[in-house]
């Protein structure tokens, strides 16, 4: 059944297989590039729409990792991407900040928290809703255990701290932006 190996047929078969496979993959890459980019863009747009009030245009600043959302001439707010380290790995958020410095809403872009514990930061109503309209000039931005005003997720203080830190970073970015 199996062909006896010699240098020529080994090189030939392996080379041809690789050539053919890379050809197939190259073709597939070209064909799926557009839908993949579209899906990624849709995802960010959806995330921004979730964390900011209604806007019509959005532009991305790759260096500062933030989006500027505008409606006509008026600034609607900034959607700022931040990443901190949670319990299971990086925790990436997008934080919407309106021009008055108030958090409009937050959304998790990606996380690797424990299912059923830290992962609740994407489903826990009570935890998520407290970020809506969070005003850092009135409330203290740290979890209650550390003397702040943020309700942590039960049994997931580390995740909650990371989440809070991410919001803090976003607000820092916002301050730098509004000082410019």
């Amino acid at each position, binding site marked *: 059944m199996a062909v*006896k190996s010699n240098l020529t047929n080994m090189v030939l078969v392996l080379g041809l297989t690789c050539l053919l496979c890379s050809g197939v993959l190259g073709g597939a890459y070209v064909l799926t590039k557009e839908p993949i980019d579209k899906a990624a863009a849709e995802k960010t747009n959806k995330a921004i729409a979730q964390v900011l009030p209604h806007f019509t245009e959005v532009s991305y600043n790759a260096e500062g990792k933030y989006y500027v959302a505008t409606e006509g001439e008026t600034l609607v707010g900034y959607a700022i991407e931040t990443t901190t380290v949670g319990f299971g790995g990086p925790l990436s958020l997008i934080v919407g900040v309106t021009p008055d410095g108030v958090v409009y809403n937050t959304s998790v872009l990606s996380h690797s928290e424990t*299912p059923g514990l830290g992962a609740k930061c994407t489903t826990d109503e009570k935890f998520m809703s407290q970020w809506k309209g969070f005003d850092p000039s009135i409330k203290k931005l740290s979890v209650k255990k550390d003397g702040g005003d943020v309700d942590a997720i039960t049994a997931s203080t580390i995740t909650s701290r990371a989440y809070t830190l991410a919001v803090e970073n976003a607000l820092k970015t916002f301050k730098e932006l509004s000082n410019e």
Partner: protein
Amino acid sequence: MSKFKMITDGLVKNNPTFVLLLGMCPTLATTTSAVNGLSMGLATLFVLVLSNMAISLIAPVVPDKVHIPVYIVVIATFVTLLQFLMQAFTPAMYETLGLFIPLIVVNCIVLGRAEAFANKHGVLESAFDGIGVGLGFTCSLTVLGLVREILGSGSAFGFNFIGGNDGMLAFVMAPGAFLCLGYLMVLFNKFVKKN
């Protein structure tokens, strides 16, 4: 061997999860819910059928000494293809399964079927073998995911029936995966495999 028997063989006699105990890494890691298990199973099924067919076609001309690298290249090609397709059309699922999609390349079920079956049989037979074993894997993962989801988060296929999320957390995490797998294996061997 009839085509029908080949498929039932993959489901029962050669069930990759409960009998052959192959591909344990994705089995334990992705079955946190029924839907995740099902999608991982279907992804593996896709790769298994295509790689089985391709390998049965090229096997007669592949020299003995390089057959493993050639098979791996073929399998990796289909996995990458699947990755592109999932990223394009089911981005949410791609994100959930994440790392475990590229890991299908080294899933011993896929290379195992190529070595044990596809390189000795025709295209059609290999395709059916792929479907059988793939379905066996899919069913096992779905059942395991379902049991863990019911016990761990009190829901089934994303439909919550206890209200709130007060399931037994351990079952969503790794220890629960081992426990469920062990008990399901016992039940499977006692009731299903016997007949």
